[in-house]
């Protein structure tokens, strides 16, 4: 056998209905519960990710509303301190780990193969695994909460408060192991994104023609690959300290509590960028469509995305300015934190210039994208302020920081995500969302958000500490907190309108057609919703705007993008592998069939952690053995995937 035995001559063919029908039979997951569980279709997985993340958004939001009632006025005792601790910790943990990251994974899972002109992600079963682990981790953490064992030391969970001596219940054990499980999900998902980016772009889509959303998610994923181990390790060491008598964080026996803070924030700060850069990418791709022109400054925006992330690895100590570290360390991290404003500002100016130079169409999606620029700027400025050490010493652990994190996370994550939902909902479902309800949705969310969160800056400046379960009157904080509570409820009504719009439009929305916004990128060239195989033929790309080439005035190009003629790849589930930088043809990839191994693996991994948290060691061992067997079955050389010596079949 030689390489030539495994070659196939391919040639461009037109996209014909007979080919589409053949691909449908190859790719479509059978209906029914078996197909639902075993599917590896990135679109189904993406939708599940988004729905699950929105469910957690609502759960985290309700938690916040409850404790905002507690804080509506001084000396209220709706909640006990213990209840308050669990609620605010669950709120932070839910929003940051179970909503903000996964919702972006959901959008990217759905959109990437469509943006890049592929039939699926590079590793479809890993994709399914990533979702199932995420779901299991979320249920694991919320079941603990339901039994009163939710995490209760704040989402960043500092020791020694989180040590066994000061928090004796199993709460932190659930949090630790749940976070390790969730970290696995993020890691395998990130690896999948990076490999897909490097290998599955349509021929001709060299890296300077990739949509910015792909840059955003690529950057975030690459960061996650390096950052997630820090937090998984931190939680593992904490679990060991609490359960195996180790001394990592115990200063009396050779440990050091600050080790927790270092490991946590070495992860935590890159994570902040990981949960905003893909959202910024959504804006960079979506906003120009409504400005009827390409994004201004594609290359600077792409480079700024990467630069932000690289710098983002060097700023973690700005969370630790008040811990008594040497001033040389503070100076360095303060400078790095302030410099990061530069690449962040590149995007802001690019978006403003795009609106300025374009002809804006004021759709709901546009409103969300444009308002994001305002909120990002406010959140950016308050971050810049606290990047200065003396200011941080004054403001750390006050409501000013709470205001900052909410302007950053709601402003740069929730607003773009809602905008992106209005933008891509027609692609997901084939129906438009209602624009009239959309206006109500936007203005309620925008006004509610600013009404609720802007006053937190002032209460912080007036010295109100974060995480207090109630406060005394006469501090000058009363009316500010009342306004914050009112605003948070208005904001919640806005989110409710959003959910209602989704539910109503899903059934009754106007039929969208392939490209309702007249947008330029590949996902809009296929039907809405897309077929299981995404594209009848693999598209060929000659520019950043495959569907706008006719009208853009760069007519010196010799070649046009082609979506109706290309490689058929119809001998089984197949997609095209291309080279990493130039996207030249490289290999025909055999894609896996639907499989139960991912969901089983997620369950066996959850079994291990359940055994560990309950100290049922036999259960953990059973889970580990089952995990090993499942992985071996998964990796067993498969002739249909072209992994064994027999020539590739059909």
């Amino acid at each position, binding site marked *: 056998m030689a390489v030539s035995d495994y070659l196939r001559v391919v040639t461009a063919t037109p996209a014909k209905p007979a080919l589409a029908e053949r691909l449908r039979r190859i790719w479509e997951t059978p209906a029914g519960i078996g197909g639902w569980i075993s599917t590896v279709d990135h679109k189904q997985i993406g939708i599940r990710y988004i729905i699950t993340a929105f469910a957690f958004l609502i759960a985290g939001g309700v938690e916040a509303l409850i404790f905002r009632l507690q804080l509506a006025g001084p000396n209220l005792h709706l909640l006990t301190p213990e209840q308050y601790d669990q609620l605010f910790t669950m709120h932070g943990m839910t929003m940051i780990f179970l909503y903000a990251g996964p919702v972006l994974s959901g959008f990217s899972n759905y959109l990437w193969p469509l943006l890049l002109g592929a039939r699926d992600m590079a590793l479809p079963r890993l994709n399914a695994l990533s979702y199932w682990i995420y779901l299991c981790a979320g249920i694991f953490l919320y079941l603990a909460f339901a039994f009163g064992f939710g995490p209760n030391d704040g989402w960043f969970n500092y020791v020694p408060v989180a040590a066994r001596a000061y928090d004796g219940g199993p709460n932190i054990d659930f949090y630790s192991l749940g976070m390790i499980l969730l970290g696995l999900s993020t890691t395998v998902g990130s690896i999948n994104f990076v*490999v897909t980016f490097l290998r599955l772009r349509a021929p001709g889509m060299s890296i300077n023609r990739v949509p910015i959303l792909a840059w955003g998610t690529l950057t975030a994923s690459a960061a996650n690959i390096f950052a997630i181990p820090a937090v998984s*390790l931190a939680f593992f060491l904490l679990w060991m300290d609490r359960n195996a008598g180790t001394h990592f964080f115990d200063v009396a026996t050779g*440990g050091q509590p600050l080790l927790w803070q270092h490991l946590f924030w070495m992860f935590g700060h890159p994570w902040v960028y990981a949960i905003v850069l893909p959202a910024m990418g959504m804006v960079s791709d979506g906003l120009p469509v409504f400005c009827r022109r390409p994004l201004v400054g594609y290359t600077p925006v792409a480079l700024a995305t990467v630069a932000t992330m690289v710098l983002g690895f060097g700023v973690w100590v700005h969370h630790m300015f008040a811990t008594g570290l040497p001033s040389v360390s503070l100076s360095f991290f303060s400078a790095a934190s302030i410099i990061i404003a530069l690449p962040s500002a590149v995007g802001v100016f690019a978006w403003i210039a795009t609106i300025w130079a374009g002809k804006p169409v004021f759709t709901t999606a546009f409103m969300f994208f444009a308002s994001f620029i305002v909120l990002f700027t406010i959140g950016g400025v308050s971050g810049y302020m606290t990047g200065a050490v003396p200011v941080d010493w004054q403001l750390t652990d006050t409501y000013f920081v709470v205001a900052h994190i909410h302007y950053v996370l709601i402003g740069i994550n929730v607003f773009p995500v809602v905008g992106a939902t209005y933008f891509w909902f027609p692609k997901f479902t084939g129906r438009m969302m209602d624009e009239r309800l959309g206006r109500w949705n936007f203005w309620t969310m925008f006004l509610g958000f600013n009404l609720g969160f802007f006053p937190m800056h002032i209460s912080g400046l007036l010295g109100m500490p974060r995480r207090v379960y109630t406060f005394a009157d006469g501090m000058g904080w009363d009316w500010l907190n009342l306004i914050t509570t009112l605003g948070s409820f208005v904001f919640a009504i806005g989110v409710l309108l959003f959910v209602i719009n989704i539910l109503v439009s899903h059934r009754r929305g106007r039929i969208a057609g392939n490209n309702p916004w007249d947008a330029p990128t590949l996902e809009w060239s296929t039907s809405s919703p897309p077929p299981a195989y995404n594209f009848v033929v693999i598209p060929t790309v000659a520019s950043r705007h495959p569907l706008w080439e006719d009208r853009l005035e760069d007519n010196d190009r010799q070649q046009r993008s082609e979506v109706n003629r290309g490689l058929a790849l119809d001998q089984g589930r197949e997609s095209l592998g291309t080279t990493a930088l130039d996207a030249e043809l490289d290999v025909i990839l055999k894609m896996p069939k639907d499989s139960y191994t991912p969901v089983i693996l997620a369950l066996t991994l959850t079994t291990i952690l359940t055994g560990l948290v309950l100290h049922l060691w036999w259960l953990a061992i059973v889970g580990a053995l089952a995990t090993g067997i499942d992985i071996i079955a998964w990796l067993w050389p498969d002739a249909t995937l072209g992994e064994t010596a027999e020539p590739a079949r059909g």
Partner: protein
Amino acid sequence: MAERLSLQQRLPVGALDTRASGWWAMIFVIFTEAALFAYLLFSYFYLAVQPHVAGTFPPGGAPSVSLALPNTIILLLSSVAVAWAQFNIEHNRPNRLAAGLGAGALLGTIFLVIQYFEWAQKSYTLSSSGYGSLYFTITGFHMAHVVVGVIMLWALCVWSLMGYFNRVRYVHIHIGALYWHFVDAIWLVVFFTFYLTPLFGLKS
């Protein structure tokens, strides 16, 4: 755009060498695993430079290399065996492939046994001090990786004997060997940290 993109050509089909998605995935698995060990060793060095009572970090001074050094050589030899297996499948000698993988797995197993004796002779435990926690956790993390690698090598050995691979189709070997070489390489870093840096003065 200088050249037109030609779509008419002969393309390889399926999982081949560095064109397989799994190979790329393993590269990034190794990146994230390397990061994990970097954070583990960061924890070691971070705690090492904190103030300690003299003679407690490590307890009793620099650890003896009488078992660890030969064991390091055994682990490196297992990498050589696996590399030899890779070389042989590229020259279409599947029996030597299986022999190389089996030898690698066996040497990996011997490493684990010796490591057990290394653990057993320590005067401190996981819970006796910060140093003990670090030593057993970090070498334990590495041992867990060796266990996974040994199981993987045995599986690859069996699959080789079942005739799954030839000189073109051996992507599992390619990917598995990558992981195994990583597990061996990262041991050198762990070994350097625990056994050699105290000799260079990083102790109290």
